[in-house]
């Protein structure tokens, strides 16, 4: 393949070989170092229980993020790490859900259902990258949202799929798209409908979620038994119901690309909403610390941290946990 004649061509070939060897050496050295780093970070399996009241469960950040726990009273204290890799997690009343990815040439994604002793009791294969996970207050209903791989990742109109699992009957509803949607009172059908971010009411039947169609997002109120949902209001994403069942914390699109979402709280009785004191963009389905405080993961530079902010619009955000995501309070 050399193009120069004789000695010049030969010298060039040697230089290229030397360059190839150097680059291969650098690449190999980096990969080996990275492999060693991965080994050191593996956690020892530890006794985390899903019924230890007063503890906070979360995803301990890092590319091999594992389910971890700290005492709520001392969030800065030492973290107990499990051996479970979870991209998103949630738990309530002794039922846990961990959305996990088995890395392989064709990655497989699962919702792993956990009992109070953190043992796997069920595994559901999911059709895409984990986005949201939730368990009903009683621990009976589990829901997840994934990004459906297949649509172009870079297309702004991404596809999501949201499923529900009833732990009592064992039935899986693979997609909320199978339910009837009433938009402004009338049955609505469109191929571009996407749902995400389910939150359950205390009766294990009613739920809230987000639907997007024709470029607009709406809050829906749903009924699992009747397999219906109806739209309530526009521009509400990833709702999360307060423990007393009276308010939803949600992210509201701002229209400002530099900070796309702001956390708001919606009073369900009056349908009045207030902006929370967190002014930085939050892309998470928030959770409730108690009836007055919400907690959420936030992207701060290169890391994800868990913050809290009062639910009434007063006060200021407070850093709770560094290098953490997907917080869930064990009640």
């Amino acid at each position, binding site marked *: *393949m*050399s*193009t120069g004649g004789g000695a010049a061509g030969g010298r*060039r*070939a040697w*230089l*290229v070989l030397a*360059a*190839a060897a150097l*680059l*291969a050496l*650098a*690449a190999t050295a*980096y*990969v*080996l170092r*990275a*492999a060693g*780093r*991965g080994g050191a970070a593996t956690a020892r399996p530890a006794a985390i229980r899903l019924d230890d009241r007063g503890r906070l469960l979360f995803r301990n950040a890092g*590319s*091999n993020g594992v389910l971890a726990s700290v005492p709520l009273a001392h969030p800065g204290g030492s973290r107990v790490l499990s051996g479970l890799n979870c*991209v998103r997690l949630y738990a309530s009343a002794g039922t846990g859900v961990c959305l996990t*990815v088995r*890395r*392989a*040439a*064709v*990655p*497989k*994604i699962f919702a792993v259902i956990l009992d109070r002793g953190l043992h796997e009791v069920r595994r559901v294969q999911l*059709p*895409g*990258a*984990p*986005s949201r996970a939730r368990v009903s207050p009683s621990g009976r209903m589990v829901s997840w949202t994934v*990004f*459906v*791989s*297949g*649509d*172009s*990742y*870079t*297309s*702004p*109109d*991404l596809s999501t799929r949201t499923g529900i699992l009833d732990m009592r009957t064992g039935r899986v509803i693979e997609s909320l798209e199978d339910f009837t949607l009433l938009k402004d009172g009338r049955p609505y059908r*469109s191929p*571009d409908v996407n749902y995400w971010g389910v939150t359950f009411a205390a009766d294990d039947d009613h739920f809230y979620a987000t639907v997007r169609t*024709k470029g607009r997002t709406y809050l829906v109120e749903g009924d699992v038994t009747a397999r219906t949902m109806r739209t309530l209001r526009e521009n509400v994403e990833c709702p999360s119901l307060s423990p007393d069942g009276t308010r939803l914390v949600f992210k509201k699109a701002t229209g400002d*690309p530099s900070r*796309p979402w702001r956390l708001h709280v919606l009073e369900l009785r009056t349908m009045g909403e207030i902006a929370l004191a967190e002014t930085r963009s939050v*892309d998470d389905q928030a959770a409730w610390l108690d009836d007055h405080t919400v907690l959420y*993961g936030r*992207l701060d*530079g*290169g890391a*994800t941290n868990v913050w809290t902010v009062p639910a009434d619009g007063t006060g200021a955000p407070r850093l709770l946990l560094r290098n953490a*995501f997907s917080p869930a309070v064990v009640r």
Partner: protein
Amino acid sequence: MYVSAGLGNAARAMRVWRLVAPNIVALGAVSLVTDVSSEMITAVLPLYLVLSLGLTPLQFGVLDGMYAGVTALIRLAGGRLADRSQRHRLVAGLGYALSAVCKLGLLAAGSSPVALGAVLAADRTGKGLRTAPRDALIAASSAPRDLGLSFGVHRTMDTVGALAGPLAAFAVLWAAPGAYDAVFVVSCCVAVFGVVLLVAFVRDPSIRSVPRAAMSLRPLRRPGFALMCLAAALLGACTISDSFVYLLLQRRLGIAAGYFPLLPLGTAASFLALAVPFGRLADRAGRRVVFLGGHVLLLGAYLLLRGPLAGAVLLACVLTLHGAFYAATDGVLMAAAGPLLPGPVRASGMAVLQTAQALARLMSSVLIGAAWTAWGRPAAVTAATAGLGVAIVAAWPLLRAVR
């Protein structure tokens, strides 16, 4: 019979190899290595962004869309710059080098969507910059009657790289689970090697002292070239984008999403097998005929998507036709344009032609997306199929009139 067929193939391969200029092989090797590098990134980027950084596709998609138009302009600028300076290798090399640096930029960008968007835009700028001068180099390095074959060989090597890239990425992640930074570093090393190959082995046959008068873009205004751009844009505007084709297959066949990334491999395998034969066919039977014929094959794929076939047979037929469409059109269009463009403005002309086609395809994917949303999937496919049929009939007189 088995043995003799094998020997026949080997002998044919040897003949093909001898017909191809060393410079084409060198350019093909550069593209192969560069594609390994860039496809390593493409394969892991979604997982990296969503799983490691926690970005949502939406956050990222908005940024990405903003830069789509910029790439088209950069490509025109790259072609013009290469022609003005008559340093095609230098301009192409700058494009390759910029993309190599961007692989490390991904590390530096951390998880800031703005910085990530900027790095990916710079990466695409590099790609836009190098494409037209590289194709002009291929055209200038090849005997006019073997242009189709030369482009076929180049595109085949390019595709081998595109296939090897994801495998390389998975190998790195297998050795160091979850270490996306290692994928970026290895990808950067591979890209740098591509630049080394370019500097060491690619010759620049362009003439340095071109009279100013020859630099005029007037040849691009000749009716022949304009007709070809028009035909390419017309056909491009009726082409369903790849991701839609795969999505349609997935919906028809209920393919598990985990296997979705494997569908493009089917297209690539068909392309790999057919790019060289179709290139040769184009040199003998006429490049414009083969270019149009490729679109007829695509029409066949669309009809199958609405037809009675099902299961693995449908999958195999559609992917084979889809790959055959690219094999008959991608390099062949450049080979057809080569003789219409005098050397001093060749890169500019190729950039204009590629941009016309790319913008038309972009428009078509927007239209088909809208039709899908408004009318549903079957109606959108029917509309696209009818549109392509009309475009083929309309493009033939245009292509025949090209002189």
